[in-house]
Structure formats: C-alpha cells, structure tokens
C-alpha cells in the first residue's frame, strides 16, 4: 500500500482494471507503470510531472436502493445511493474495493475521473469521488478520450476538463433512479402477487423499457400465431441461351387463382420466346456509414450470428486492448481529428490490408461517408490502428476485421452496378430475365467478405432474338407469416422507436430470456411472457406504452443539455407510477392467480422433452421419482398404464429439452449443463447409431 508519508499524488479513477493498466502505462514517462495490490485490489503507480496512482473500479460500485430494508413490500418511493455490497447479494468484494479506493484517496491532492465518457462512466466516477473519496466530486477533473491509445491518453491528460460533466451525471442519476423505481415496484407487484396466490416464489420482472419491448414481441407473436396464409402461384420459364439454361420470371409475381395460372401454362406449352425488349439500368451504391454500436451489433448478428450482448462484450474487450475506439457510441461520424491517414498507415502493416490501405492513402482526400447520427461524447467505432499484441480469439478477430474493413469502406468510392431486364414474349405471355453485375467495385473491395451483392451475368442477347423455352414451371406458393424477431432485429427495433439506451438494450433483451418470457434465437414468446404482458396491459397500460417510455427517454436526454430539470422528470415519473402500483395492489388476487397459472404452465412446458418414440402417442417428460426424488425421463402414457418407457438422467446440473431430434436416430434430445463443464447434448436412446459409431471409434483409438 502507498505509504502515508509519501509525496502527494494524483489519483486517477478508471472504470475497469484493464483501462487502469493502459492509462498508467501510457502516462508513465518510462512506459512501465508499477502494478500494486491492496487486499487483492489492483492499482498502478506511474511517474510523470508528479506521482500518479491509477485505481480501477469494477463497473458500478454504487447503486440505488430503498431506504427501508426488506424485499417483500411495495410501493417503494424513497431511495438512496448505497455501495453495491449493501444492496446486492454476491457483491461482497465491493466493500474491500471501496476501502482501498478510500485509503488511496486520503493521500492524493488531485483527483481525476477517467471513467468512460458517457452516462454510465460519469456516474461510476462521480459516486466514487463523492462517497468513497470524501466529497471530491467538486474538485475533481475529467479525462475525456475515445480510445485507449498512448497518444490519445497523453493528450487527454494534458488537456483535462476542469470539472466533472454534472449535466451528464444528473441525467444518469435520473435514469438509474427512475428505472429502479419502475423496476422494483412493478417487479415486486408481480412477484408478490404470484407468491401470495400460489405460495411459491418465482422471480417475475418488468421495467420501464422491458415492458414495451415485450409488447413488440407479443404483438408479432399474435400475428404469427393467428396467421392464415393466402395461396398464390408463381410461374418461371427455363430459357436456353448458348447451351446454358437461364430462369425467367413471369411478369406477374403472384398469380391469384389456379385457373389463371393454368391458362398461362397452357398458352406457353410447346412455344418458344422472342426477345421483346432489353433494358439496362445503372445505379450507384453508396459506401456504408461508420459503425455505431447498434449497426455493429446488427451486422455481427447477420454475418456471424452473434447476439448483441456478445458483440458488445467482444467490442468492449477490443476497446480495452486499444484496438478499437469506444464502442458504446451512437455516432456515425468520423471527425478528422482522429487522424484517418495515420490509422490507415498503421493498418497497412497487416498483409491483408496492405493493398487496400495503399489504395486509400493514394487518394487526394480521405472523406468518410458519414451518417446523420451524432453522439456528443464519442465518434463512431473505428480501429485505432494499433495491432493486436496477442493472437486474437476467432470471434475477436472477426469483429476487429469487420470494424477495420468497415472503416476502410466508408472512405471508398460509390460502387456502380448495372441491372439488365430482358423481356421475352412467349405466345403473348411476358417473362423477364434479369441480370446484375458490378461495373465499378468502389467501396465493395474494401468491405470484401462482408459484401452481400449478387452477380448474375447474362450472355449477349439482342432484340427480336428467338429463344428456346425448355420448360415452364408452375409453383404452388403461400404467403408467409411476418418474420420472428431475433436479438439483432429486436435491438434495431428498440433503437428505431427510441426506447432504452445503447448501453442497456442488449441487457434488456437478455433479461427477457432469463425470465423465460421468451425463448429461442428466432424469438418465441412463452405463455408466461403472454400472461405478464396481459397483466400489464389490463392493469397498467401506461407502463407498456411505447409513447410514454419514449417521452420519458427524451426528457431524460434533455437533462444532459440542461434543458430539463432532474427533479421535474423524477416527480412526473413518480406521479405516473403511483396510481399504477395502487391498481396492481388492488387487483393482487386476480393478477396472482393469472400469473401463478402461467408459471405453472411454463414450468410444465420446460419439462416436455418430445413425443415418445416407443408408443408414439405419449409425451416424454422430465419426471421425479416419488420414492427416491431422482429425476428421469418418462412417458406420460405410463399414468394410463399404456407405456413403460423411462430413461435415466444425470442427477447433477440442469437438464433442458433441446426441442430438436437426434440426427442419428430421430429421438428427442436434451442438453445437460453442469457448473464448470461444457454443456453437452444427450440422446437418451441406448441404441442410437451415433453412440455405436462413437463407441467403435473410441475402441479403435484405444487399440492404436
């Protein structure tokens, strides 16, 4: 521990340990900050104009909590900010952490908040300075940076902001307090109602953003589940040109009656086609805009299938290793101050980027194709130009490569593409043959593997040319239900309607899964999800109103620019909440019954494994033996004395039906999860051919 008689130093507070280490190393004149530890809490000592101590937080160390203790009551309208260990189970280490920070603060004479420059970072720094450092929030300075590169950190340290951004802090405090008030009151109302009715505890939750998000999902689910398709027909003709077969579509995309479709087929039977016209169209495809966090999350989901939460975590790791800029940004701007040229020069040492960066650096001017969205605190996500100091894991490498290529692509020229539409007349019926080709690659070259542009090249065709029709195909079709949301498209939707923040949206989606309101990657709302929304819609429609949530968001945003007062927003939010909570309390019995039944159904649903492959009519379920309490898989027809099928299950860990059948034998499968081990999928058919195959393979290996 730093001695009490040591020279006074500057205390820098960061949000995470990795950032502390980066900042300390960047500021130390020799580039070698000394790692120290107090009670397992790491901090770093650096030497510059004077000694510097950099101490990290581990995210939020303080949180909002009720003034009175206990979890089994509501409404709750009085709250205070407390250390997290006082409000949350499992946050014991926070006490030691805060003690270390307090000790380090005693001998400091200058205080700098170097947490991420956004709402969350500002609150983390503010709370530590105010509560753990004895009210140093008034005199503390602020370090503002968007990357953890040495150059930018040195610059940020040299040009410290004279005080904390109190408007940002006020906005953040209000958001946390309002979210806490809504979350705690509504969630307790639901949980207590269910518990008082059934006598069993199950965590139910909703919140200011969670409710409206669930509402989108339920609305989509209702459309899907009550969907009735419409029949239609599609006709295509196979045309032979220069020995190759091309497919031409009939002029009408959808033919509404079978009669009409058959008449067209009959008219084309045995006839050849004549080229009636050829239309060429050229169009420009502008480069993409730089990544904001939402766009990065959507792109990573569609390219790699990563959930928004996963992409954010990976991007955060890359940021902490100074490979990319701060990812929690809503900006689509890349200001010149970040030095585009320097970044490209640095990236040119990677062989895959060498040619591409050289091409960009040869341009007279580097002008990014910026989007409209701005963020007062950070630019769009961009590569810092630093190269990885270790071998990146595959997901990290993919996200880094995506950020690098997107950065290069935004400086590219527009791509020029050409579409061709050949109209072929077959006995009075028109068919279109379409081609698509890139004439000038432009930015597409830089985005490389991530470009989704289809190329369909057509041979030379002339007007009046006669073409052989090999066959005409009639296809029965049906309209499809609206697509299900996936975590990526849901995040986009939340962003579009303006609910949640860039930092919270991914977590809110995850909570919907954790509470079992939704399941699967292509999101399906569970019975429990339906019931919770129905309760909220019937008893407190304002809470799930997208309009209300959006209006509150806008007002909270205005606090950041001093256009709205924290007290007013907080008071109005409480005024909205009070009657809602009263209504929930009045109807506790009805709500409790509704939710308890839904929980019961949901728990039952969770135990259904699939159809019994032995009797074919029963359902396989995870059951518990009355004698031993052990779990096993059994057929529901056992209770009708029709089927004795039963299979043992591992007794440790959790078992989850996978909802898909084994590829070897077609039996239903389950997934087993045991703490500390990788989850594995289990086919419980003892005679599964895959098991036999594996057994033989193992035997062969042991012989060798």
């Amino acid at each position, binding site marked *: 521990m730093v001695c009490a008689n040591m020279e006074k130093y500057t205390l820098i507070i960061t949000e995470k340990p990795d950032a502390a280490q980066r900042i300390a190393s960047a500021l130390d004149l020799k580039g070698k900050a000394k790692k120290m530890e107090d009670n397992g809490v790491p901090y770093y000592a650096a030497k510059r104009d004077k000694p510097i101590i950099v101490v990290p937080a581990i995210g939020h160390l303080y949180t909002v909590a009720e003034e009175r203790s206990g979890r089994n009551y509501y409404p709750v309208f009085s709250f205070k900010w407390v250390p997290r260990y006082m409000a949350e189970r499992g946050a014991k280490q926070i006490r030691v952490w805060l003690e270390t920070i307090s000790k380090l603060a005693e001998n400091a004479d200058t205080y700098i908040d170097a947490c991420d420059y956004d709402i969350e970072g500002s609150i983390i720094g503010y709370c530590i300075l105010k509560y753990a450092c004895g009210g140093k929030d008034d005199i503390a300075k602020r370090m503002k940076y968007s990357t953890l590169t040495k150059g930018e950190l040195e610059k940020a340290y040299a040009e410290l902001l004279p005080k904390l951004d109190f408007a940002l802090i006020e906005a953040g405090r209000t958001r946390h307090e309002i979210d806490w008030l809504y979350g705690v009151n509504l969630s307790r109302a639901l949980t207590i109602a269910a518990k008082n009715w059934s006598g069993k505890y199950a965590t139910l939750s909703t919140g200011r953003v969670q409710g409206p998000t669930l509402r989108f999902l339920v609305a989509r689910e209702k459309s899907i589940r*009550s*969907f009735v398709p*419409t029949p239609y027909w599609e006709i295509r003709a196979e045309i032979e040109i220069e020995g190759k077969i091309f497919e031409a579509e009939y002029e009408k995309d959808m033919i509404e009656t*079978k009669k009409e479709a058959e008449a067209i087929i009959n008219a084309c039977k045995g006839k050849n086609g004549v080229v009636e016209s050829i239309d060429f169209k050229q169009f420009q495809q502008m480069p993409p805009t730089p990544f904001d966090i939402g766009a990065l999350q959507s792109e990573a989901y569609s390219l790699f299938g990563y959930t928004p939460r996963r992409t954010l975590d990976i991007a955060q790791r890359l940021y902490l290793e100074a490979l990319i800029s701060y990812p929690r940004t809503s900006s689509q701007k890349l200001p010149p101050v970040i030095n585009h040229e320097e970044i490209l020069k640095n990236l040119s040492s990677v062989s895959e980027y060498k040619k591409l960066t050289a091409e960009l650096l040869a341009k007279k001017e580097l002008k990014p194709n910026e989007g409209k969205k701005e963020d007062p605190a950070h630019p769009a996500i961009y590569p810092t130009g630093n190269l990885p100091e270790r071998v990146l894991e595959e997901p990290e490498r993919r996200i880094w490569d995506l950020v690098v290529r997107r950065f290069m692509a935004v400086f590219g020229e527009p791509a020029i593409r050409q579409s061709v539409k050949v109209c072929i007349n077959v006995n009075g019926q028109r068919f279109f043959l379409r081609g698509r080709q890139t004439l000038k690659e432009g930015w597409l070259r830089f985005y490389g593997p991530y470009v989704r542009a289809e190329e369909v090249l057509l041979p030379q065709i002339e007007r009046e040319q006669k073409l052989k029709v090999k066959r005409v195909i009639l296809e029965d079709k049906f309209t499809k*239900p609206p697509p299900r949301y996936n975590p990526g498209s849901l995040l986009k939707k939340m962003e579009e309607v303006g609910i949640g923040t860039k930092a919270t949206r991914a977590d809110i989606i995850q909570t919907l899964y954790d509470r079992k309101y939704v399941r699967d990657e292509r999101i399906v709302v569970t019975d429990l999800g339906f019931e919770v929304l129905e309760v909220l819609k019937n008893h407190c429609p304002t809470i799930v109103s997208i309009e209300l949530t959006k209006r509150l968001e806008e007002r909270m945003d205005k606090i950041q620019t001093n256009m709205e007062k924290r007290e007013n927003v907080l008071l109005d939010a409480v005024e909205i909440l009070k009657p809602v909570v009263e209504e929930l309390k009045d109807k506790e019995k009805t709500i409790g019954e509704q939710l308890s039944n839904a929980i019961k159904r949901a728990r039952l649903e969770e135990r259904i494994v699939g159809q019994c492959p032995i009797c074919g009519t029963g359902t396989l379920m995870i059951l518990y033996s009355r004698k031993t309490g052990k779990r096993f898989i059994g057929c529901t027809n056992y209770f009708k004395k029709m089927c004795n099928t039963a299979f043992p299950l591992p007794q440790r860990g959790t078992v989850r039906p996978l909802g898909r059948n084994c590829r070897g034998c077609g039996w239903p499968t389950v997934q087993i999860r045991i703490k500390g081990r990788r989850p594995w999928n289990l086919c419980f058919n003892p005679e599964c051919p895959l098991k036999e195959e594996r057994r033989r393979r193992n035997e062969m290996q042991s012989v060798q």
Partner: protein
Amino acid sequence: MRCKVCSRDAVENDYCELHARAYQSIMKKYEVWKRALEISWKEYLSEIAKNPFTGEWAKEVAEHLLKGGEEESGA
C-alpha cells in the same frame, strides 16, 4: 364462459381474445381461398389446418371448426 379451444375466458364468438383473432383471420381469408382454388368451407379448413405457414391458434380454431362441423357463417 370458457373459450371453445382453450381454458381462457371467452370474449367473442365463444373464443378467447387470442383464438377470436385467429377465427377472424380464418373468416377473412376464406373468400380469397374460394376464389383461388374454388373450394368449399370444409376443404378450406382442412387445407389451412395442415398448412405449415398457418399459425398455431388459427390451426387450433380450424381443427375445432372441422370437428364441430360448423357452417361458413360460423353459426
């Protein structure tokens, strides 16, 4: 009064809110199917009951209507 298909409270045509919505979809689409395929009400119900794109609730209502032998009017 309980829904004819599930155990929820019935709100319209003896269906709960969810199945009533599906019932309305079924009624609305019949004209389109009749024109497209020249089929009867029963044939229509059988078709949608086995169609993979038909939603779960619409299937349940179609199956219920088939079993009950209800007429086109839903009477």
